């Protein structure tokens, strides 16, 4: 395998990554020669429809893809290490601590039977040797950093007592506990109201800048890409069909599929004047 050197300003590089689902011995390719990089301190987006492989790619970065997904070629490089060659044990020092992920449905990602404070403290103690008291104060700091008001009361509450937007903030706080430098966010605002979506996205952008994080959004919403992202990777049927600046994607999309996505995202307004004449 040729080892291309990671460009100095790239945080992560996925190089010719192909993977197949192992269906009882029969290999069905789902990721085909996926190649892209995430520049440091940028906010990128992987855009695609369901089944395009965007989530599987992100999960592969963290070594969290389903076991039946078998890598057939290529590699994923993060700084000086090749993630795809690390053992599960080595990967565990990276996952969460260096590269973290926020999952789509925050309330499903939180355990319903433990208080939010308890879960955040457990996360701290899984990664750092600290006393309970220190863990608690770190957890409280994290909640405050995602702008959750009334932290001490919120720490004692259970996930069901949080609104969707607030639960998403908790999930975000949980990933920030270990100060990761790369944050993957899988559809972080799907299911949130547009008003709350803007708040959560602004928060992600601010935190990314404050903490010098590289962030990567996995989304199907090109509107978010235009509003917040610097880079965009368009995926379709397991392949990367376009990788470009977020600005370029709106002015001069090169791949027909990108154009199709853009067109589909903008719906035609119903012509009500015409309907009124008919009526």
């Amino acid at each position, binding site marked *: 395998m040729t080892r291309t050197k990671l460009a100095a300003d790239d945080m992560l590089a996925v190089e010719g990554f192909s993977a197949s689902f192992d269906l009882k011995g029969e290999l069905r390719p789902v990721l085909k020669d996926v190649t892209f990089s995430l520049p440091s301190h940028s906010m990128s987006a992987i855009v695609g429809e369901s089944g395009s492989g965007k989530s599987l790619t992100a999960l592969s970065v963290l070594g969290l893809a389903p076991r039946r997904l078998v890598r057939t070629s290529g590699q994923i490089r993060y700084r000086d290490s090749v993630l795809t060659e690390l053992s599960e044990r080595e990967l565990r020092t990276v996952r969460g601590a260096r590269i973290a992920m926020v999952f789509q449905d925050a309330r499903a990602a939180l355990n319903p039977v433990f208080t939010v404070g308890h879960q955040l403290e457990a996360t701290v103690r899984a990664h750092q040797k600290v006393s309970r008291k220190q863990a608690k104060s770190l957890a409280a700091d994290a909640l405050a950093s995602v702008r959750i008001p009334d932290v001490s009361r919120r720490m004692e509450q259970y996930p069901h007592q949080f609104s969707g937007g607030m639960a998403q903030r908790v999930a975000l706080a949980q990933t920030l506990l270990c100060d990761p430098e790369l944050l993957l966010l899988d559809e972080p605002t799907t299911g949130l109201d547009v008003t709350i979506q803007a708040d959560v996205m602004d928060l992600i952008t601010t935190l990314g800048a404050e903490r010098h994080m590289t962030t990567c959004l996995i989304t199907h919403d090109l509107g978010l890409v235009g509003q917040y992202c610097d880079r965009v990777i368009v995926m379709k049927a397991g392949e990367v069909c376009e990788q470009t600046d977020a600005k370029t994607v709106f002015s001069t999309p090169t791949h027909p599929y990108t154009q199709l996505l853009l067109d589909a995202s903008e719906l035609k307004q119903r012509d009500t004047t015409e309907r*009124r004449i008919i009526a």
Partner: protein
Amino acid sequence: MTVNADISRTRLPIMRVQNVTKTFSTISAGRRTHLTAVDQLDFTIAAGETIALVGESGSGKSTAAKCVADLLAPTEGTISMDGAPTIRPGRRARRRDHRRVQLVFQDPNGSLDPRQTVRQVLEEPLRNFFGNNRGELRRRVRELLADVELDESLLNRRPRELSGGQKQRLGLARALAVEPEIIVLDEPTASLDVSTRGQMLALLERVQRHTDVAYLLVSHDLAVVQSLADRVLVMYLGSIIESGPTDRVFTNPQHPYTKALIEAAPKMEYRALRSAWRLDGEIPSPTDRPSGCLLTNRCPVVQPDCHAQRPPLVAVDADHLSACIHPELLSAPSMDARTAS
């Protein structure tokens, strides 16, 4: 007929929702309290028109839709079709009404029986209302599939063998089976990808043109509302705070909430100019609704007199109503200062 005549006035309403209020009794912090999910809702639906209920989650739009579909009984008020109330005792009458109002659910996976084939899904409502003639059933099932542009080769498939778009079409076909006058569409495209979303919306429009069915669309996707609805009812904390023809509400919103909702949606361009018009925080709990204007704790231009009493819905111009007593502040220059993010 003039260009300005609204559909709802040129056509007779088939459903009239009058003063509908729905309260739930809940226990919060150990005390029994009443939660007002929907407060004195008033609107009509005419044949062949599409009305959209929009608002954030917690605004009461789903509760309102459930009342319309007779899945919830209103605490107060009446819902009538052709002058006769739909909520009436007796199974037979209720059953007749259920034929007239059907639902398409948000999540096709949860609303289709995984063990039924496409044919069974469609035959069940037909049997319930039109009898058991086998030839007739086959003919109607084929017709329904054609109506929603599904291929007949899918007849023996089960939901898990269908794509998301196909499942949602099947849900629509099932609703159409009993030839309803109104179909409640609960977030009909929320489960779909953008590329299939457009197809579904186009299909809904074609079906409406052919059958003259009325849609009550419940959605928080404003793009979908804009492309499908003739009239919009904007709900907040259980009340309608603005209503009117879609194009007018979207181009000239008269309530701060509507304006914020419209301007919060990301635009399809690179770093679009962002509106400074934003709401603070989140929708409060319906157990403690503000006493004055419902938006007082989030409104960017709240005034002292907004707290005094709940503003009524008043006409801004013909059939465009709004419940804001300070619409002049919507164009206040300080709030129009747009900032690039």
